[in-house]
């Protein structure tokens, strides 16, 4: 195959992958910023609209204002009629994500009554409406967010301390059965966490840790301890021993050497594995479903929300809330790891 053909194939593959990743992400984002009316609109728009184009008519006979909205087929669709501005205001907030006061609406709408002609308006959407509503509609969403953060941090703490110590021991000591331990830690990683969580549920109840974040963190840590041990073991092995020996010769104690030389050098490995630990804890629903009752995590709450409610746009905005910290965490760590390892 010639080089042009190769290049075209390469770009085709890349764009297919990008397409299959980006389109669902964009769809999710669009829904997260959509109002209730837009959810059922067709055809779907790819990017979220930031405003609504509205038409207000005055119905002389029934004595009320009629709101129509320009939909995606470019037709004005009648949505709501009422003579009272407080009802209009309520409707706009709930179904179109527009926050306007009654007075503002009255000023705009009254023109239609006075002239007897249609009034065309462009109202900006309140883009944070869905996010605020998410916490209002789903009971305990803020508690769940807090729980998720707690579970993730505990998971990181547990897997880093235990996994890091195992990694150090595997790399630097002459204990017997080292190979068996490293292999074992990988095999643990192969178990689906769900399968461990059934027997663990019983154990956690016995220890009084059922429905607590520390209990969840323990389960999440099990596969991550093995992974962390593997990652850190290879880093501890790759650090030239002479770097530590130089520190010892030049006047440092063993503890100072670990603190000033070894630890800064392995920190990127810890950062990378803490990313995995964070993502495991943050995105899990299955284990949380089995091991919690009232203290749910955000991912679990979303899982239930998407399955059990018609308010898809609130659930989608919840998903965005779930994604953002993970993205932020990953990017900060990525930059750090890049800086250290180039």
């Amino acid at each position, binding site marked *: 195959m010639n080089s042009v053909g190769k290049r075209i194939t390469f770009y085709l593959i890349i764009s297919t992958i990008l397409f299959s990743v980006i389109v669902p992400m964009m769809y999710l984002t669009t829904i997260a910023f959509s109002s209730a009316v837009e959810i059922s609109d067709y055809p779907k728009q790819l990017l979220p609209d930031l405003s609504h184009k509205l038409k207000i008519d005055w119905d002389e006979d029934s004595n009320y204002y009629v709101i129509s909205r320009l939909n995606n087929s470019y037709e004005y669709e009648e949505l709501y009629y009422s003579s009272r501005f407080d009802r209009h205001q309520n409707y706009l907030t709930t179904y179109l994500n527009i926050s306007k006061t009654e007075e503002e609406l009255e000023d705009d709408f009254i023109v239609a009554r006075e002239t007897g002609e249609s009034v065309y308006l462009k109202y900006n959407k309140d883009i944070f409406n869905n996010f605020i509503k998410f916490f209002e509609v789903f009971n305990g969403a803020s508690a769940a967010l807090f729980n998720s953060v707690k579970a993730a941090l505990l998971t990181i703490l547990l897997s880093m301390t235990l996994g890091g110590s195992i990694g150090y021991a595997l790399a630097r000591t002459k204990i017997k059965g080292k190979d068996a331990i490293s292999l074992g830690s990988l095999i643990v990683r192969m178990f689906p966490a769900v399968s461990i969580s059934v027997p663990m549920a019983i154990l956690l109840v016995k220890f009084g840790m059922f429905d607590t974040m520390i209990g969840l963190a323990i389960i999440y840590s099990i596969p991550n301890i093995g992974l962390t041990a593997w990652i850190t073991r290879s880093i501890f092995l790759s650090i030239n021993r002479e770097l530590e*020996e130089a520190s010892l010769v030049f006047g440092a104690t063993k503890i100072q050497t670990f603190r000033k030389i070894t630890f800064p050098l392995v920190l990127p490995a810890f950062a990378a594995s803490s990313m995995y630990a964070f993502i495991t804890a943050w995105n899990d629903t299955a284990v949380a479903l089995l091991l919690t009752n009232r203290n749910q995590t955000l991912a679990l709450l979303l899982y239930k929300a998407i399955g059990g409610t018609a308010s898809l746009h609130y659930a989608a905005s919840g998903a965005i809330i779930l994604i953002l910290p993970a993205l932020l965490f990953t990017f900060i760590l990525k930059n750090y790891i890049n800086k250290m390892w180039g």
Partner: protein
Amino acid sequence: MSFLKLERVKKVYNKTIEAVKRFDLEIERGEFVVFLGPSGCGKSTIMRMIAGLETVTEGDILLNGKSIIHLEPKDRGISMIFQSYAVWPHMTVYGNVAYPLKLRKKTKEEVEEIVNEAAVICDIDQYLKRYPNQLSGGQRQRVAVARAIAVKPELFLMDEPLSNLDAKLRVSMRTDLKRIHQDLKSTSIFVTHDQSEALSLADRIVVMNHGYIEQIGTPNEIYHESESMFVARFIGSPPSNFLDVKVELEDNKVFLVHSTFKYEINNKFVKTLKGKYIGKTIVLAVRPENFTIGNKGIIKTKATIVEPQGSHIVINANIGDVEVKIVSPILDILPNQEIMVGFTESIGLFDKDTEKRIK
């Protein structure tokens, strides 16, 4: 009293592997001593024991008359240059040189002054703010040297510090190390497997093999009066040539007899040879430059391969079934040319069984 004294030092790994079998050495203050030997001879182990990075299985190491084998590395007052430079990658050049000083609780001003001073000596003062990965190998090596001299050590250890550098840089760093040693007069131990490094740097060379000391001596002694065949073979490039010869007595004259030549001995060896070796086979060792080529030669042979080196040529030739290397200042010898080979007075004789020098 000597400055550093190693007494019957022995090192055994895992209860079975004897890395150093017996090591006795005394080093005077200000001396530059080189441990030379092939890899695995125990030279680095000795250095690491002096530094405190390895425990001593048996024997004692005395620094200024006091045993140091139970001290932590940090309390021994030494500094070291490592083979991999061991420059800490997460610190700037300044941070690297300053780290040992900060550990010694110097004030910020003192640290700055000493770092700058060391940086000027090692010619790295313009790189102080850089990280090691922005430096070349030679510059990193200079950082390691600056760090080592900044602490003003009693003893300066260097573990094959030049082996990771390219050939040209190695030679210039070698000169720099010697200059720094002459300026600072610090007692130095240098480990290497490169005999030309050893010869050019050392006040005294310790040649090691299989965990034993083969010979201790000045570069000239090591080269011209090698105590064993191992030393004669290890030192010199190309190394000594060995010919098995039989000692024969005729008319009260001692001859070395080889299948291709008969050579009369009439110097200091006569007495010893007469006493113990008549009728026995011994080893005649000839340095490549101690062959002569010309009419006075006693062996008729043919140059097989000729390697010009600029100032001299290296000739490969067969004497009997042994291929010897001859260094000759006569530059116009061609391959397959017939040559007459002889020896100068500077030859060495070795006992074939013990491989020790016959004096």
